[in-house]
């Protein structure tokens, strides 16, 4: 099988075109991959890191879901599932939580070190460390203190009571014995690329192409996994990834390109399953740019873009145009806020109102300089849909007299430019949310430092206030009302041009059974997945 994979990689390097691809893939399909109990799945984005904290991508999160556990988990049906904790108690004020941990759980690795309460305390302190680079730190702000009462009991004190306090304990636990020399966590630590967890699969290897191999953990506390290996293969070209699936070189594709849905639906060898409904795409505006800090200009850019036409042309209308910072599948979406219509005249009028001057060559600012923005885009080779979207955006803005300078960056450089340095004017990206639909870390002004999610440096005191109220509210309808207000304000303020929410489809071979796909985390009960 290793030979097969090498052949496949060489093929991609040396030849191009459908015919040669067909031949090579036929060769691959000659050897059944199901027989050796290895599941190959394809991703279009290479995972950055493999620990649960330093990455901000779904491809990393999916892998960490296989490698790590939380104290508890939450399944798709919103049920709390005990993981590393067997049971728990809560004080009447809901601010003190005591967890009783499983005994006989071991960390991956030859030394079989036992998991204990000190790992939990260590994880909280490590992630809370000011220098730890993690966009998931906001969740840890709720912990006032954490204490190991003994090896198998841990006590948390929360800063305040909240609606879903128990959900805070889904955070993944890290091994103290492997990380004790670190005071904080960043992308450069060796652990981030060679992680050790307690989950159903352990990390085995990662090659130069970022193909990652995981090995079943026979001692997994919820039962030994039925598939021996899981191998994640990154594909920069979704066409090739689809071919790999249809020629049996892959068993599963995590995110099917909309162009291939009809073909896979008609192929009885595969199943398609929709997931990740709580996501949306957007163009984000850096508020450190004086022009983009002007609401009128941001609104103008949103009016200038014909989102309906783009959705139809690039995604066959398989999605919904959105009006604000939540996906339509969210409880927080304000249905009374209507998406802005495409209206280039209104866009031009708003730009004039903002003080920009229209010339035959385009808009100029008060100093006579042409209005020009850099649009930085993460571009994986041949990711056609992303390219088309940003090119269409550029054209729409050119039509109203705004110049867009497209800058395609390799994903790592893009992330550094956007999230660490905030060195951009406009960017295009997609957020994916869990059921909480929490936008606090995206729009609150306190989360605008390096590697945090408010990378546009958005600062609106009213939004900050409402986000704080929503977080603290223990009344469901109040929380919903506040989020509806946030939707209204953010739609009006246009920190992003909110685009659309798409249905994502995973495809997998029907040789697999017991497949459960979590709408956010993807892998659910992966230890129960098996080949027929």
């Amino acid at each position, binding site marked *: 099988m290793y030979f097969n994979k090498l052949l496949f990689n060489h093929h991609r390097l040396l030849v191009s075109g459908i015919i040669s691809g067909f031949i090579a893939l036929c060769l691959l399909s000659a050897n059944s991959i199901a027989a050796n109990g290895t599941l190959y799945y394809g991703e279009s984005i290479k995972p950055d890191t493999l620990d649960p904290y330093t990455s901000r991508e779904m491809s990393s999160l999916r892998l960490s879901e296989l490698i790590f556990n939380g104290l508890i988990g939450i399944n798709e049906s919103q049920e709390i599932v005990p993981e590393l904790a067997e049971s728990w108690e809560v004080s009447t004020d809901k601010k003190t939580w005591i967890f009783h941990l499983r005994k006989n759980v071991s960390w991956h690795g030859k030394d079989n070190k036992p998991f204990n309460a000190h790992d939990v305390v260590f994880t909280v302190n490590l992630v809370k460390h000011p220098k730890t680079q993690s966009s998931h730190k906001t969740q840890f702000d709720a912990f006032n203190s954490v204490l190991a009462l003994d090896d198998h009991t841990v006590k948390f004190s929360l800063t305040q009571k909240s609606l879903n306090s128990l959900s805070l304990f889904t955070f993944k636990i890290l091994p103290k014995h492997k990380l004790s020399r670190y005071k904080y966590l960043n992308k450069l630590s060796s652990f981030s690329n060679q992680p050790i967890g307690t989950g159903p699969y352990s990390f085995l290897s990662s090659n130069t192409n970022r193909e990652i191999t995981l090995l079943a953990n026979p001692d997994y506390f919820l039962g030994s996994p039925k598939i021996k290996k899981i191998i994640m293969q990154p594909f920069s070209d979704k066409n090739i990834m689809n071919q790999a699936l249809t020629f049996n070189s892959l068993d599963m594709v995590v995110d099917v390109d909309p162009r291939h849905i009809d073909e896979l639906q008609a192929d009885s060898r595969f199943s398609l399953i929709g997931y990740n409904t709580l996501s949306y795409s957007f163009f984000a505006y850096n508020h450190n740019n004086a022009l983009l800090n002007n609401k009128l200009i941001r609104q103008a850019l949103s009016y200038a873009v014909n989102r309906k036409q783009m959705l139809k042309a690039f995604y066959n209308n398989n999605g919904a145009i959105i009006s604000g910072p939540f*996906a339509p599948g969210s409880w927080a979406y304000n249905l009374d806020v209507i998406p802005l219509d495409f209206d280039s005249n209104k866009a031009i009028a708003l730009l004039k109102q903002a003080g920009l001057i229209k010339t035959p060559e385009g808009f100029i600012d008060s100093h006579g300089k042409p209005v020009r923005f850099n649009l930085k885009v993460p571009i994986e080779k041949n990711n056609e849909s992303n390219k088309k979207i940003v090119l269409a955006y550029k054209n729409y803005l050119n039509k109203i007299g705004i110049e867009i300078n497209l800058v395609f960056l390799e994903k790592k450089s893009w992330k550094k430019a956007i999230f660490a340095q905030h060195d951009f004017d406009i960017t295009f990206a*997609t957020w994916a949310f869990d*059921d909480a639909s929490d936008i606090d870390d995206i729009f609150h002004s306190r989360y605008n430092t390096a590697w945090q999610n408010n990378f546009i440096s958005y600062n609106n005191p009213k939004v900050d206030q409402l986000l704080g109220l929503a977080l603290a509210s223990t009344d469901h309808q109040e929380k919903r009302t506040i989020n509806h207000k946030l939707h209204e304000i953010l739609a009006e303020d246009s920190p992003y041009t909110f685009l659309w929410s798409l249905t994502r489809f995973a495809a997998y071979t029907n040789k697999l059974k017991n497949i459960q796909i979590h709408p956010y985390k993807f892998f659910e009960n992966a230890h129960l997945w098996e080949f027929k």
Partner: protein
Amino acid sequence: MQKASTQIISILLFLLAAPLTAAPIDEALNAYKQKQYHQAAKVILNSTVNLNALEAKNKLKVAIIFSKNAKLSKDIASKSQTTQQIFLESLLTENDKDKSIFLYLYLTDIYLQLEKYDDAEAQIEQFLSNSSVDVNYKNLAKIYQAWIALRKGKKDEFHTIANDLKDKHLITDMAIGFIQAREKQPIENNESLSNNIKEAFFNNRNVLTTRAGNYALRIFVANHSLEDAREIYNRLTFHAPSYTEKITTNKIINFYESTLADTLHSFYMEYAKNLLHQIKDDKKYGDTATFYLSDLLIFENDEKSANEYSNKVEALRLLPKKQSQLKAVRASTHGFLDGKRSRAYQVWKEAVENDKNDPFISADAVLMCLTVEGNCPTLVQTAQLAAENGKSKRFEELSRNVGRYFLAKNLEDKALRLLEYALDRSDMNSLLANEPILLLNLAEAYRANKKFAKSLQIYFSLGENFPVMRQIQDAVQGEYLFQQRSSGQSNVF
């Protein structure tokens, strides 16, 4: 009751072959073909077309559009009641400090529709015990008490309560008329009530609230005053709440008319039947019109005309081939409503067993059992196997109907599986290209299985075409927030 889209499209194509005279009907048919049934109806009803003056083929087209909306509205009404009940009950469990007293009133309405009279009584007493309630709402609450009494068979008590009301306004009389219309009773002071409604809303152009619109529409339908009903329909905002309560600056609750979708159902149904009756003796279209009348009568579980229509359906000759194939199943369904249940079960069973490869007739047999609320475990099991094994698009309708059957029997996980099969055998790449009745039931199955985001995503798409769906969306959003347990993570996809 739902028939194959192919069957209906074939009839529409057949009808389209004749030259058209009314442009709105063309526009409506375009919307219909795109499965935007509400839009199709709206185009016709908003136009100046006199429906009674249309030629037979156009009457048939309009009747088909209305009957589709009638059936869908009934299903929406049922989903609305279920979801609103869950949401409002959840709100009742919230802390007492900021509780809305209107929860009791609107829950009363829902319990009444769900025939939970004791629960309804308890809620309305809670509402009335609050001294801050204004006179109109107090009267309304008393009318609900009267309604409960009526449902419990105490006709006199209904009249006593209704007659004892003080400081009555037009809306109070409309509420009484609405209840009488719903209960198929003569509306008291019918003529003056109708005149007062027209005076207030047509001549004086008073603001038509959702509540007033709901009541007026139902009253006009009961009076067979379809043109007046049409005017009310054209002025109603279907997605608007019935009442919005601002409890604090940051806590606002929208309450909806849970009976509105059912009122829409009655309006579309009355219009469709009226048009079909007008052409049932037409030489060319009479048989098709009769088939559709039979379809609507089955949908209403009409026992009175069951015997007559059982024979009529059998005798129909000028039907398109697909409909012709359904005659035996349909005739036996009328028979079921006429008391000949064993015979119907036998016919449906044979249809399912003999129709495994092209499941058009078996899909209809399952639908018939579902529609008349029959109990068909054996035939559904056979149909389920066929649906699970059939991979082509021809099995979409069978999977859909079996899924709907399971949903009606509260077997939510099975229902979801079959409805997902139906979607898998339909168009996954464009959600709105699918039958709204499939999407509605799939969304409800997702909700019942607590897969709220998937449910709301479908409702969001459906809501764009069917504005009355808003009341379900609002309720499911509320339930989702109560049920969700996540911590609040976001990542770059």
